[in-house]
């Protein structure tokens, strides 16, 4: 049993080296990136930072204009350079390509060794962050953010006095497409207990053998 699994793992790592993940860069993409060797390493680093901000918060024309002025180049060149860099980073992070594969992929751009190393450092430093940003993107459904609650007792209302009605007022905060939505909801104590037992059953579902088997085998 032991030998078989050892053999299998050796084969797997060998196969991995056979099936390399090389990025295929389009002509446009290569052209956009061709701007990079013309500036110093510090500027490339700065562009990397702008590219990351772009991913997080979107681009701002003022930043491009400022950089273009300092470098005495047209704004489009800066914009394309940053966008090209960003695309290179996101594609590499998305596929989790190895150092080797990354260097081989950028080789095709014909940059010097130093620039290649700078790009590699950028990738290594930021790829985890980029993956976590990308992971949050596809959600079209609102996601849970927080629940605030309070317990009130209703004593009277316009149509009826002398009431004693306990009620749970809640504010459910959901994120969806960047901004927070707030929903005010109410429930009574017995429904609250029903909700708790329903959602506890949901949590228990993760611990079943069925679920565990799926998590173990889909990797």
């Amino acid at each position, binding site marked *: 049993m032991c030998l078989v699994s050892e053999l299998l793992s050796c084969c797997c790592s060998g196969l991995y080296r056979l099936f390399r993940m090389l990025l295929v860069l389009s002509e446009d993409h290569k052209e956009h990136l061709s701007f990079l060797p013309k500036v110093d390493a510090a500027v490339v680093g700065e562009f990397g930072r702008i590219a990351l901000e772009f991913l997080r918060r979107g681009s701002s024309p003022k930043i491009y204009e400022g950089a273009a002025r300092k470098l005495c180049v047209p704004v489009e060149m800066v914009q394309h350079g940053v966008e090209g860099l960003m695309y290179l980073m996101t594609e590499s992070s*998305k*596929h*989790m390509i190895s150092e080797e594969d990354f260097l081989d992929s950028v080789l095709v751009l014909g940059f010097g060794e130093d620039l290649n190393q700078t790009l590699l450092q950028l990738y290594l430093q930021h790829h985890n962050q980029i*993956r976590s940003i*990308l*992971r949050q*993107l*596809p*959600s079209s*459904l*609102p*996601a*849970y953010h*927080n*629940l605030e*609650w309070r*317990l009130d*007792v209703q004593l009277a*209302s*316009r*149509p*009826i*006095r*002398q*009431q004693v*009605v*306990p009620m*749970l*007022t*809640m504010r*459910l905060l*959901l994120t969806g497409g960047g901004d927070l939505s707030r*929903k*005010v*909801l*109410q*429930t*009574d*104590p017995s*429904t*609250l*207990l*029903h*909700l*708790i037992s*329903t*959602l*506890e059953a*949901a*949590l228990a*579902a*993760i611990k079943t053998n069925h*679920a565990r088997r*799926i*998590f173990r085998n*889909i*990797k």
Partner: protein
Amino acid sequence: CREGCSLSPIRPPSDQSSYQVLVDVSFRSLLSSHADPGVLDQPELKRVDQIRLKQSHTAATTFILEAVKHNADESTISSCLEELSFSADRIEVFYSTHQKHRRELQLLLASIGRCPPQINDASWRLQYHVKNDQVNKVNEPFYLIALNTENKGSSEDINFTCTVEQLQDLVGKLKDAAKSVEKASQM
């Protein structure tokens, strides 16, 4: 309740059977008739002067609503009706009918008015996020929760996703709320 008495110049019809019918009809028109104008078309009420009948009916329903609204007790209702020269029998008839329908009327009144949507139920799905087009491999379980809410008859589902940790957070907060309800009920 004093106001209720002064607002309703109830002048009940002279014979006992039409009185009983009028009382029943008054309660029924609040609860089940849904503003049906034919509610006064009872054979026992045909003999009564129709204008006086309508006035008495309006006064009676107003009085009933005020009594329920302020949760009036037996002595208050009795003294009000005594002031209007109701006989002891008639007060008894009115009060016993009132007791029969009181709870239902209270629920009806309590349901009037605006309030936030009420949560009735929750449903959930557990899914395993394998991958998507932005990130090649995700491999994470997540939940899709739907809270079924109702507001004035129309129901709406609030849908959201959450991770395992977030669901634990949500359940924890709901349990805190339940604990506080229990503590409050013991005070």
